[in-house]
């Protein structure tokens, strides 16, 4: 009997193994950076002086559970993640289940990137972008200004559900996604918006992209959220201990101080003028309305022309400008970065740019100052 069991087991396990490997796909990416502050303003903590950054390694896992059901997850280890010394960041960018009813109607549930603009869904996936880092106005408001003005136009991620798909209108192909997620509660409170929470408000994000021709794509994005704005306070309570003595216990508490409404809109365009010349543009604007505090509009745009001088060498020039608060004059920040992207080997890219920041006098961070950095990145996709 034994002599049959072993071959039978081997047969079963090999079949299972074959089925398992057929259903699972593993991809990922790696990014390593070097930055050198060359000149100018240096009075803030993100300046790097000849420093390396073990920026990230990500594993992208796809499990095609059935013909219509896919599970996707992107696990990330950022900035040399080392829990022993509490450094870096470990997490997952997304993990969701996607069910395809048809190509024009898919359903997703889980943690997802917020589908806004060109960059958010690929902001960590450096091999898929030409530039070293995404333009600040697209969502790095904390590099533009401080305080409430540094509030993101939309959060990076959200937990919820989404409908998405692609189809055609009048022979124009388009894709869309509509996403409903937990409202963002990350402002001033230590809670988890990816978990069940006490915030009744839900955020909604949507994007549509249309391929007007094989070489010209335009798109529009929208985000709305009504978050609770918290203030952290220290509370002291008197408690009687086991010896019947009263002791003062101080703890941190979060007091909701009002609503915080975020509305953001964006438009984008990617135009492949020919095989070698590409032009990408994005404009974003939005309002931030904080109850009992302030209400203002902000906006920003980026322009990125690029040109392949040879099969593997792509030259680019990134220009972006952001106005973090339209109610304040003379507070904009301009970034520009001439750069090069060289594909050294299959999906292995060496990027370098000369990153310049210039500001107006009323900007809350830079106060009219400017600075320049040299940045290099090695990005590998697999």
């Amino acid at each position, binding site marked *: 009997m034994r002599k049959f069991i072993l071959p039978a087991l081997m047969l079963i396990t090999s079949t299972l193994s074959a089925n398992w490997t*057929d259903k699972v*796909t593993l*991809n990922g*990416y790696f990014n390593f950076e070097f930055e050198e502050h060359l000149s100018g303003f240096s009075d803030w903590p993100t300046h790097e002086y000849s420093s390396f950054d073990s920026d990230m390694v*990500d594993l*992208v896992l*796809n499990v*095609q559970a059935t*013909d*219509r059901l*896919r599970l*996707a997850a*992107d696990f990330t280890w950022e900035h040399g993640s080392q829990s022993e010394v509490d450094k870096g960041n470990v997490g997952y960018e*997304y993990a*969701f289940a996607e069910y*395809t009813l*048809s*190509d024009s109607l898919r359903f997703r549930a889980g943690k*997802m*990137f917020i589908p806004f603009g060109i960059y958010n*869904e*690929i902001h*960590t*996936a450096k*091999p*898929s972008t030409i530039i070293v880092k995404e333009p600040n106005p697209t969502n790095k408001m904390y590099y533009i200004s401080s305080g409430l003005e540094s509030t993101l136009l939309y959060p990076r991620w959200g937990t919820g559900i989404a409908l998405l798909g*692609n189809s055609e209108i009048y022979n124009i*192909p388009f*894709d869309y996604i509509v996403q409903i997620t937990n409202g963002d509660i990350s402002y001033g409170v230590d809670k988890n918006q990816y978990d069940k929470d006490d915030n009744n408000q839900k955020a909604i994000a949507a994007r549509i992209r249309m391929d007007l021709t*094989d070489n010209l794509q335009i798109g529009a994005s929208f985000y709305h959220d009504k978050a609770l704005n918290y203030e952290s306070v220290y509370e002291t309570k008197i408690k009687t201990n086991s010896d019947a003595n009263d002791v003062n216990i101080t703890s941190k508490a979060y007091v909701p101080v009002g609503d915080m409404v975020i509305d953001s809109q964006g438009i984008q365009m990617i135009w*492949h003028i020919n*095989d070698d010349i590409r032009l990408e543009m994005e404009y974003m604007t939005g309002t931030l309305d904080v109850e009992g505090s302030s209400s203002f509009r902000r906006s920003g745009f980026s322009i990125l022309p690029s040109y*392949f001088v040879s*099969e593997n060498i792509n030259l680019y020039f990134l220009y972006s400008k952001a106005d973090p608060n339209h109610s304040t004059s003379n507070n904009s920040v301009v970034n520009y970065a001439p750069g090069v992207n060289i594909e050294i080997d299959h*999906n292995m890219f060496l990027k370098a740019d000369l990153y310049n920041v210039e500001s107006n006098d009323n900007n809350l961070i830079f106060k009219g100052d400017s600075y320049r950095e040299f940045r290099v990145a090695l990005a590998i*996709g697999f």
Partner: protein
Amino acid sequence: MKNLNQIIKSLFIVSSLLFATPSLFAEQKGVIVVSEDVNIDNLSKKELERIFLGKTTIWENGKRIQIGLSTNNSEKTSHFFNDVIGKNQRRFKKYWLKIVFAGYGIAPKLFKNDKNAINYTKKQEGVIAFVTTDSIKNVQGLKVISIDGKEYF
């Protein structure tokens, strides 16, 4: 003089053989093959483009579409990308990097030789693959389909 005649004679024989057996030196052709379970014989160029760009992901019979690509013949592969898919290979690669990393789909499987692409098509269900070969007919377990009525690129 006798040697020269012999050389000319030999050259004539060799060149005659070359013309008489074109298949030996025939140019490889690009073809689209599908797994046996895929119940189609013809696709339009537009339908093929949508499949290779990950926009159409389900066959009419409900099976998931899996994409294979042989990059064995760079000239034919590049012709396939430029003229059939409408994006050059570099752009196609970047396109799929974004799709995969942003969580929108599973990338086509790339094969460095036709044999592996053909084996993949035979072994898996729902596969559509681009291969570059001139001896694909009558291979069991897969079939050649035409694109806008044409079998070869």
